[in-house]
């Protein structure tokens, strides 16, 4: 392939291009540009997957300058899985959003989505700590803009809280980068991997603490989860899906990358550190599920379920020493949850749009007139509960395997009880949906939604289940990652 068509570079250039064109076109042609653009991005990921499968890891020197002077972009199995998830979910969500916003699209929705995707792709591909800071800001500010869309008081309040949280998070990250540059004179992740040893000076430990804490704040891990439910629960359904399925995974991915890469020597020198994210994750699973069970608005239920499901991602840290199992479990969970949560939010969006009520009680009777959306919700629930053969099941299976191998049985208990709790909040919705609406029978049946609204949800949910059956190539990609 000619270097002009380098798929790695176009994964960043293409969304920037269509987002800028959508900005220029002032809210016209947005869906068309987005669908064409994301379609092209998906082709780029597929081309890149071929390269990664044959070479293991692909590097690209931005500017042509080697490190430490220049910025290296890297694609390996880990980044590739995240890129695949992102473009796949984004394409489906773009189809859904085109239909969902058929009457009126919130201002700037399409260009902000494009810039958000550009930031995420750039983040997954960057191997430079300062460049990663810029990508974090791209993602954070674009996501805040999407939350604010519509401009009602609830949206503005959610956007403000989200903005303050995300700015403190990236501020702490930037300060850590400053300390790292002062300590070593470089911000290249791969060079730092060999420079940072267990005898690192105090500044490096503080830098690690600040950067990782900042990323936890952006990932909304308990106790930093406070901004997530109003932001994800209050935004329009396509935005909620984008944020819950993908955006929080970006900062998790960076956390994991830093943990395995530059800061590996620190976490090995003090193994007890790994218990901190795991303990927070376990608390998040229990607390988030409890709040989801108690929620009275449907989208808040789904948002609190995200708080809980993010907890699983952090259970893997004490287990990473045991080989590829824990890493596979974490990334598979991120993927399966990404698909399932996108499905759940868009299904909930359709239920609310058609049913006219955002209460959990409002789904009563939905089984009769919205069977596809409800089935998608249930199927996504299967993944969240971790029932076979879903991706969530396989992820939990791998996690339990790794936990037993590492002699950490408490993680098994947490993982299993999280699944049970997820069952309670999913069945709470399903049970209501099969009940007759409490009101009178003479209410006219709501209008049928566009088929696309229902089937995109179904496709995402089916993906989250099928990924459990066809996970072998995915797991092989992750196993091949050399941190």
């Amino acid at each position, binding site marked *: 392939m000619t270097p002009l068509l380098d798929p790695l570079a176009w994964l960043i250039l293409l969304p920037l291009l269509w987002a800028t064109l959508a900005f220029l076109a002032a809210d016209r042609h947005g869906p068309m540009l987005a669908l064409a653009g994301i379609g092209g991005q998906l082709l780029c990921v597929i081309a890149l997957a071929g390269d990664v499968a044959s070479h293991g890891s692909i590097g690209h020197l931005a500017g042509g300058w080697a490190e430490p002077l220049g910025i290296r972009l890297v694609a390996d199995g880990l980044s590739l899985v995240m890129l695949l998830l992102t473009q796949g979910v984004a394409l489906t969500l773009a189809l859904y959003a085109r239909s969902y916003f058929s009457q009126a699209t919130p201002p700037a929705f399409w260009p902000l989505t494009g810039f958000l995707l550009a930031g995420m792709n750039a983040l997954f591909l960057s191997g430079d700590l*300062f460049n990663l*800071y*810029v990508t974090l*800001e791209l993602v954070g*500010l674009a996501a*805040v*803009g999407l939350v*604010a869309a519509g*401009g*009602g*008081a*609830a949206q*503005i*309040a959610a*956007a*403000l*809280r989200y*903005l*303050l949280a995300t*700015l*403190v998070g990236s*501020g*702490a990250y*930037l*300060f850590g*980068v*400053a*300390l790292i*540059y*002062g300590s070593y*004179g470089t911000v290249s992740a791969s060079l730092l991997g060999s420079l940072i040893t267990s005898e690192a000076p105090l500044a490096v430990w503080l830098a690690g603490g600040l950067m990782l804490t900042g990323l936890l704040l952006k990932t909304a891990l308990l106790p930093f989860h*406070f*901004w997530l439910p*109003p932001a994800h629960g209050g935004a329009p359904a396509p935005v909620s899906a984008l944020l819950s399925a993908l955006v929080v995974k970006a900062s998790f991915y960076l956390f994991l990358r830093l943990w395995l890469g530059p800061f590996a020597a620190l976490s090995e020198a003090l193994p007890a550190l790994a218990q901190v994210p795991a303990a927070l994750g376990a608390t998040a699973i229990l607390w988030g599920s409890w*709040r989801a069970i108690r929620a009275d608005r449907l989208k808040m239920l789904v948002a609190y379920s995200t708080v809980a499901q993010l907890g699983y991602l952090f259970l893997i840290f004490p287990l990473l020493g045991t080989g590829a199992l824990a890493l596979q479990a974490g990334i598979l969970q991120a993927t399966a949850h990404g698909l399932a949560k996108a499905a759940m939010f868009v299904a909930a969006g359709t239920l609310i749009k058609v049913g006219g009520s955002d209460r959990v009680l409002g789904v009563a009777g939905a089984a009769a007139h919205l069977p596809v959306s409800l089935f998608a919700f249930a199927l996504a629930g299967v993944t969240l509960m971790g029932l076979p053969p879903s991706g969530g099941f396989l992820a939990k299976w791998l996690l339990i395997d790794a936990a037993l191998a590492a002699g950490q049985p408490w993680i098994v208990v947490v993982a299993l009880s999280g699944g049970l709790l997820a069952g309670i909040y999913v069945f709470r919705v399903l049970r209501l949906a099969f009940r007759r609406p409490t009101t009178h029978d003479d209410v006219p049946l709501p209008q049928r939604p566009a088929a696309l609204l229902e089937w995109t949800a179904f496709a995402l949910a089916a993906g989250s289940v099928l990924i459990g059956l066809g996970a072998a190539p995915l797991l092989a990609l992750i196993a091949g990652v050399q941190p």
Partner: protein
Amino acid sequence: MSAGLIYAATGCLLFVLGLGGVLLLKALLRRILAFNLMGSGAFLVLVGLAQRDGTPDPVPQAMVLTGIVVAVAATALALTLARRWHALTGREDIARVGDAGSRARRMANDRRKVGR
């Protein structure tokens, strides 16, 4: 003590001061100011620490130029949101998120204030 080290130490204190401001103050404009102090602190550490031996280093200087532009972008967005919030509710602060009960009460309050 070199000039670089003096300003790096100042930057550390400014960062913590700004962080405290964002976490502990109430008024939105004040918290936006505090965020800017946090950023300035990080910039001073980035350049000051790198230049603690007294030789200028263009790499962190260029990074700070990038950072200043990012900071003004974030500030502009934050101010727009704060003004919009004020226009909708007449309030200059936003309740800190505490326990669940207070959140529900606050959201009810927000809704009442907007009159929807």
